[in-house]
């Protein structure tokens, strides 16, 4: 399975897809988007890589161990924010406690940013984990076998 055109095209597309994922992630406060969508778009970039270069190459670039850690980090970012607000004396996920003396609710901005980042990391790594496990069970199939 050696498709030169697919490989070159996917190399061209990889960076813009990642950039778009980051845009969706951090621009979710101002426009449509957020952690869920950004995480999926991030995962799609690596899935495209796996389609064009083979799963083994993708696993070298982004090993499953890193994904497993990222899954936990993503969820801990979210629940950790809730824990921090509780330690600061407010309710769970009451972000205003992060910057208590702000006149324009800056704490809400920081809280939502961190929480959405946690969602994005968790979603991206989970989607890739599921993809790795389903695709990695069987060797590559023939093109005519569809």
């Amino acid at each position, binding site marked *: 399975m050696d498709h030169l055109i697919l490989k070159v095209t996917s190399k061209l597309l990889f960076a813009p897809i990642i950039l778009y994922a980051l845009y969706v992630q951090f621009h979710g406060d101002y426009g*449509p988007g957020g952690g869920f969508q950004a995480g999926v778009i991030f995962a799609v970039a690596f899935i495209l890589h796996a389609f064009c270069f083979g799963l083994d190459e993708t696993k070298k670039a982004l090993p499953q161990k890193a994904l*497993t850690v990222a899954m936990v980090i993503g969820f801990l970012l979210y629940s950790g924010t809730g824990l921090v607000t509780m330690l600061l004396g407010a309710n*769970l996920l009451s972000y205003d406690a992060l910057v208590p003396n702000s006149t324009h609710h800056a704490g809400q901005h920081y809280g939502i940013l961190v929480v959405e980042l946690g969602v994005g990391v968790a979603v991206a790594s989970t989607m890739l984990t599921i993809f790795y496990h389903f695709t990695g069970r069987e060797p590559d199939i023939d093109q005519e076998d569809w």
Partner: protein
Amino acid sequence: MSDFSPLMSPVVLIDLALLTMLILVAVSMLKSRHLFAVVMLSGIYSLLSAAFFVSLDAVDVAFTEAAVGAGISTVLMLAGMLLTVRREKPKTPGRAPVALAVVLAMGAALFYATIDMPAFGDAQAPANSYVGQEYVERTASEIPMPNIVTAVLASYRGFDTMGETMVIFTAGVAVMLLLGLGSVRGGREVSDAKTKKRDD
């Protein structure tokens, strides 16, 4: 917003076209026995729903549907399809008059219930008043964020979203446990997948 558009405005025509295509895609998914075609059609179905959501001004939902429904679930279903046969076994449909009667009665009841539903965009509808109205009114002063959807999702309903993240995390852990990361067989080149007899 009291001036509702006349019956055959362009928006209504677009909605009707999208909904008709949704029904056509759904019927052809039911008819097809070729699993690859069914997976592709489900991707088209999600993309059409995303277009329909855009037409309803729900861009965040449309974005999610396009990314998750049309994008990643198609890929995951293709990956799952690799583990099984490519073609659904032909099955002769049996006659079930009781089931048909129940389904028809249920469908008729649902159609009857739509008469009571509020008009689309009605400001007095339960979905647009009470807590929804509160969010729209209070976001500007409480959470200085232009996108109200993000404010509701991450702040007002932050606990719900934490549960959703937990669900996704759990799904990943379940797949890892079931499909064997670090199992004896290493999760690769499983013998039962290689010796399985294919029917095409």
